C-alpha cells in the first residue's frame, strides 16, 4: 500500500475494491472466527442458542427518494442482514450523526419512517445515540443500526453452503432501488415511476425455512454491488460455479430503460428488498411457493443453478443464446457516453 493512498468512493461501493479493503485492512485488524465467516451478520453461540448480530451504516443521496427514505433503509437493511442469517430479528439499535443545520423537520420525518418500518417489521428500536458534527463534517444525516436475532434450531444457511445442483431463486425484479435513487439524484434529471423496493424480508425467510428447512443453503440480499457481486461472493465462498439465465431475471422496463440510457448494468445496481437463495432441488417448489406468498416476493423466479465448474465463477447465458462471464463490480458505475 502506498502511504499517499487515500480512501476513494469506490472503497464503499461493495465491489472488488471494497473487498480488498476488507481483506487487507479490516480482517487482519480484528481477526476472529465469527468475522472470518463473512456472512451478512455474525453468528454467536450463547448458552445453547445461536444469535445473529449485524450492523450497518446508511448514507444515501438523496435521503428522500421515490418509495422510501434513509430511515426505511436503516431499519429494513439491518432486519434483512439478520434474516439472511436465518434469524428472527429481536431488537435494533439506532445511532445518528447529524450535520449542524440539518432541518429538524427532515429529522422528524426520518424518525417517523423508522418507527413505522420497525413496527411493520415487528422489531423494536431499543437503544440509540445522537451526535452532531459541525457543518461540512457530515452530509446531513448518517444512520447506523445494529440488530440481534435468534436463529431457530435446525437452520443452517451460510454463504459457503451452496452445492452443485442447487437452484437459484431471486425474490423479485432487479435494481429497483438503485434506479429510484439514481433517477432522484440532482443533476441527472431523469423522471421515472420506479420506486425503491425497500422492504423487510424476515417473514419471507421464515416461510422459506419452514417450507424448505435445511434445503435452503444460502440466503443473501444483493444490496450494494448488486446481484452480480452477491453471486460472485457465494460462488467464491462455496467453491461452486454459478450459471444464470438472462431472460429469466425479472427486470422492469423502466429499470432496463434507465440502464440503457446511462450505460449501467442492472446486475450491479442495489436492491433493498430482494433476496437471492440457493435451494436444493427437492425443496425448490415448496420454497418458491413460500416466497410468492409474501407481498415482496410475488415476482420471484428461478434464475439459474449452481454447478461443479467453473468453481468460483459466475456465467450468464444471455438472452440471445450467447455466454458471458459476470464479474464482481469493479467500481461504482457512472453515467457514460460510451
Amino acid at each position, binding site marked *: 500500500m502506498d502511504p499517499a493512498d487515500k480512501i476513494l468512493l469506490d472503497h464503499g461501493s461493495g465491489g472488488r475494491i471494497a473487498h480488498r479493503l476488507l481483506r487487507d485492512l479490516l480482517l487482519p485488524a480484528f481477526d476472529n472466527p465469527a468475522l472470518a465467516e463473512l456472512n451478512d451478520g455474525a453468528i454467536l453461540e450463547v448458552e445453547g442458542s445461536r444469535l445473529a448480530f449485524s450492523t450497518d451504516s446508511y448514507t444515501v443521496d438523496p435521503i428522500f427518494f421515490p418509495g422510501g427514505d434513509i430511515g426505511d433503509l436503516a431499519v429494513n437493511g439491518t432486519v434483512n442482514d439478520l434474516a439472511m442469517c436465518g434469524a428472527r430479528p429481536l431488537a435494533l439499535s439506532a445511532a445518528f450523526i447529524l450535520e449542524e443545520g440539518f432541518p429538524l423537520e427532515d429529522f422528524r420525518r426520518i424518525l417517523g419512517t423508522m418507527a413505522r418500518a420497525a413496527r411493520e417489521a415487528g422489531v423494536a428500536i431499543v437503544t440509540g445515540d445522537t451526535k452532531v458534527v459541525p457543518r461540512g463534517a457530515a452530509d446531513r444525516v448518517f444512520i447506523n443500526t445494529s440488530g440481534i436475532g435468534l436463529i431457530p434450531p435446525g437452520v443452517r444457511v451460510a454463504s459457503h453452503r451452496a452445492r452443485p445442483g442447487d437452484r437459484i431463486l431471486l425474490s423479485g425484479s432487479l435494481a429497483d432501488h438503485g434506479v429510484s435513487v439514481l433517477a432522484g439524484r440532482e443533476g441527472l434529471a431523469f423522471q421515472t415511476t420506479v420506486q425503491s423496493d425497500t422492504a423487510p424480508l424476515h417473514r419471507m425467510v421464515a416461510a422459506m425455512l419452514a417450507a424448505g428447512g435445511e434445503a435452503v443453503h444460502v440466503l443473501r440480499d444483493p444490496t450494494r454491488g448488486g446481484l452480480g457481486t452477491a453471486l460472485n461472493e457465494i460462488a467464491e465462498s462455496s467453491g461452486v460455479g454459478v450459471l444464470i439465465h438472462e431472460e429469466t431475471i425479472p427486470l422492469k422496463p423502466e429499470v432496463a*430503460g434507465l440502464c440503457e440510457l446511462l450505460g449501467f448494468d442492472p446486475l450491479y445496481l442495489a436492491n433493498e428488498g430482494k433476496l437471492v437463495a440457493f435451494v436444493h432441488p427437492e425443496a425448490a417448489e415448496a420454497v418458491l411457493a413460500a416466497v410468492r406468498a409474501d407481498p415482496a416476493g410475488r415476482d420471484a423466479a428461478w434464475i439459474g443453478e449452481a454447478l461443479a465448474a467453473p468453481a468460483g465463477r459466475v456465467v450468464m447465458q444471455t438472452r440471445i443464446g450467447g455466454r458471458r462471464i459476470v464479474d464482481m463490480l469493479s467500481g461504482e458505475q457512472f453515467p457514460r457516453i460510451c
Partner: protein
Amino acid sequence: MCLAIPSRIVEIKDRMAVIDVDGVRRECSLLLLEDAAVGDWVIVHAGFAISRIDEEAARETLSLLREAAALAGGAPGGEPPAGE
C-alpha cells in the same frame, strides 16, 4: 464509442423535447436534428437527438431477416421475447 438509445419524442417545447425510453423520461435537445416531431423515434446521445429512425428501413431489414429465418425452418422470429 457512442452509447445512443432509441427513444420516442413525447413533447416538444422550443428546441427541447421530452423523450421516453421504456417509461423513463428526460429532456433532450433538438439542436442537432431538423424537423423532429412528437411521436418520432430518435436516437439520443448525451442529451441530444442525433438521428431520426427510418421506420421504413427498419421494417425492410427485419422482414428480410424474418423471412430468411422462416425459410431456414426455425420458429417465427416475429415476436419480441416476452418480458422485454
